[in-house]
Structures are given as structure tokens and as C-alpha cells.
């Protein structure tokens, strides 16, 4: 049995979970103000004490590896690295977009998590559920919402959208995709540490770990040349 302590602070949500192969032992998720740096450690402390375990009792610690809020990712990564170092546990970083798509397990159609990257841009990837695994159709990217919509129009099927980008861009998405756009319910639309944990367990069992000393989140930014172009041509900056 593998037991994972997982953290997700990559968005406005702060989420902590302890999960094993068969169930979520505990999960706390808050989406209220950005106060990750003050609440994350107490959340971990609380969940461990309610489960009557310590960091020593889990097999590994998982966190979101990006993309997402720069500050949020750093808080999560720094906390996970510190816990791994102190308790001598392996670290597993899980891409935020993978964990969001995983919220929609076995769904039909295209799954497109979108994280608001501000200035009209989104962090996204496109997935499809194939047999028992999520298959990426388009790799992680930072692109304008318009460019993403153009890509999604090429798929002739329903698109399930989730992530904090749907708060900012819902109307525009409906305008462009019409009834093909399906939005995840509130219970599924944001990052959850239990999704990070479930994916981390799969990696743990394959023996695939990150080095907690050298681990850094990936921020996924538009290349500078593109940003210069946006500035000159669209006045986006």
C-alpha cells in the first residue's frame, strides 16, 4: 500500500490530501483569498493529526509542478521540498494540467483544462481519455485564448473545459464553441490535491521520483518574441 501526502497551491485554491491506493484518507480544500503561505502548513498539520499520522508515515510527498500562479507554485514546491528533506521522503511533482484533466476521468470527448495566465492568455493542454489512460493531444502551452479556440474548433466533438480560466473566459468560449463547450461542475472544476495524489501514486509505483534538492516548478511562459509581438500588434501588454 502506498500512502501519499499531496499539496496543490498552483491556483487560488489551497488543497492538501492524504491518499492511498484505494481511497482518500483526508482532504482539505480552500478557495478563499490567496493566503497559501499562512494556511498551508496548518492545513497539513491538521490533516496529519486528524489521521493520527506524521510525515514519516507517508511514502512520498507530491506537489503541483506547474504551470500556474508563480507565487502559489513556489509556496507548494518549497513546502514539499522542506518536508521531503526533513522526513527523508521522495518528492513527486505532477503537472497541474494533468491533475485537472484527471478530475474528468473516463469522460467522453476532448478534455481541456485552462488556467488563466492573464493578459488574455491561458496555460492549457488538450487531453482525451483512451482506454485506461489520459492521452495528451496537445502538449502544455501558454497561448492566447483565441489561438486555443482555433485549435479546439478543429476537433469535431464536445470539449470539456475546467480550471480557473473558465471564470474569466466562459462567455468568450461559449461564443466561439457554442454548445460543444461543456463546463465541469463546481465540484470538479478546480485543482484538488487528491488528483495530484492519485497521479503521484502511479508514478511512485513505477519508481519514478523527482530529486527534491533540484526540483523546480515549470512556469510555462510565452516566448519573449511572442510577447513582443503581442505588445506591438495587439496592445495586450
Amino acid at each position: 500500500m502506498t500512502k501519499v501526502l499531496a499539496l496543490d497551491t498552483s491556483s487560488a485554491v489551497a488543497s492538501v490530501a492524504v491518499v492511498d491506493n484505494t481511497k482518500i484518507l483526508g482532504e482539505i480544500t480552500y478557495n478563499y483569498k490567496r493566503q497559501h503561505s499562512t494556511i498551508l502548513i496548518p492545513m497539513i498539520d491538521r490533516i496529519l493529526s486528524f489521521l493520527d499520522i506524521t510525515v514519516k508515515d507517508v511514502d512520498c510527498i507530491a506537489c503541483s509542478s506547474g504551470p500556474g500562479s508563480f507565487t502559489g507554485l513556489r509556496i507548494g514546491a518549497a513546502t514539499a521540498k522542506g518536508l521531503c528533506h526533513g522526513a527523508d521522503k521522495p518528492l513527486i511533482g505532477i503537472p497541474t494540467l494533468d491533475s485537472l484533466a484527471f478530475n474528468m476521468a473516463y469522460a467522453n470527448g476532448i478534455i481541456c483544462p485552462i488556467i488563466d495566465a492573464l493578459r488574455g492568455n491561458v496555460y492549457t493542454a488538450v487531453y482525451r481519455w483512451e482506454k485506461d489512460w489520459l492521452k495528451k493531444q496537445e502538449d502544455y502551452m501558454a497561448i492566447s485564448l483565441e489561438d486555443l479556440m482555433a485549435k479546439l474548433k478543429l476537433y469535431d466533438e464536445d470539449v470539456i473545459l475546467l480550471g480557473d480560466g473558465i471564470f474569466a473566459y466562459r462567455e468568450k468560449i461559449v461564443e466561439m464553441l457554442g454548445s460543444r463547450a461543456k463546463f465541469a461542475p463546481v465540484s470538479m472544476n478546480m485543482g484538488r490535491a487528491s488528483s495530484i495524489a492519485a497521479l503521484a501514486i502511479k508514478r511512485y509505483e513505477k519508481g519514478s521520483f523527482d530529486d527534491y534538492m533540484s526540483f523546480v516548478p515549470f512556469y510555462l511562459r510565452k516566448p519573449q518574441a511572442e510577447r513582443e509581438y503581442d505588445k506591438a500588434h495587439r496592445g495586450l501588454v
Partner: protein
Amino acid sequence: MPVLLSIWNLSIRKAVMIMEFLSNSPEDTEDIGRILGSIAQRGYIVCLEGELGAGKTQFAKGFAKGLGINEHITSPTFTIINEYNGRIPLYHFDAYRINDVEEMYEIGCDEYFFGEGVCLIEWANLIEDIIPKENIKISISKDMEQGVYFRKITLETSGEKYEPVCRKIIEKWDIA
């Protein structure tokens, strides 16, 4: 008391308004900051320009008080950003040590610019390229001939979002 010198509506189409104030002491500068802080809203970007010793930090102290922040305000020259919790959060930036706007992206500046609080940015002219075009610009200039403490403070708002700013300042001014 600071003096409200003039108000111009430069272009109705582009929604640019300019106000000028005279300050005769650091306290006057702080008062002007306090009035602006008291009317600041979520999402406001306030750029603060002026040479060393012009009173940018003094202005920032007043601005923070206007937001209901009682903490001691220091210039974030070394930390780049200081965060304070008031009526709404204040993100106080100092771009003096920024060599390249890339460094600002690295610290996730967009999360602050488009976030839940007010951004007050010292030395904003050094990172002009990445600051949202709609903003409030405060320029503080000295004029030694008029006295050691004399400062002219110019407030310029660009963008519809900031249209009520000048009117609200005048209302506050009348009460004070």
C-alpha cells in the same frame, strides 16, 4: 496643508485627467497620498515617479494609511515587493533594482497587477513596458528655488476605470 493647484481634462475620448498639487512638507506629501489611498479600488495601478529624496516613500506611507494599513511602511528596494493587508491588499513595488523587465515576469508580477489589491509601484518608469497602459501616474518633482521642502505633485489618470478618481479626490479635499 497641501494645495490643489489645477485640474485638467486633457482628452475626454482617451479619458486622461491631470491634477496638480503643491506640497510644502513631507506631511503634505503624505496627506496627498492618504487621500488617494482612501479612494483606491481593487485593481488600481498607481505608478510613483520622482528622483531620490523626492518623497515617494512618504507618499507611500500616506497611501497605506488611506487604505487603513497601520503597519510601518518601508521602501521595498531590496525585497522588490512588500504586501500589506488593509481595506484591500496593498502590493508595494520598488523597481529600482530591476535590470530587465524579464525579472518582473519571473516574480509573477502579473498576479499582482491583475490581482485583488492595489499596486503602488515606485520607479515604475523603469518597467514601463509591462505596466498596464491604464493607470494612475504620480510624479513628484522638487524645485529648490521654491524651498527645500517644496514639491510639485502631478497626478495623471489614463483610462475609463480611473475616471471617478479626480472627482473623489475633490470631494475628500473639501471635507479635509
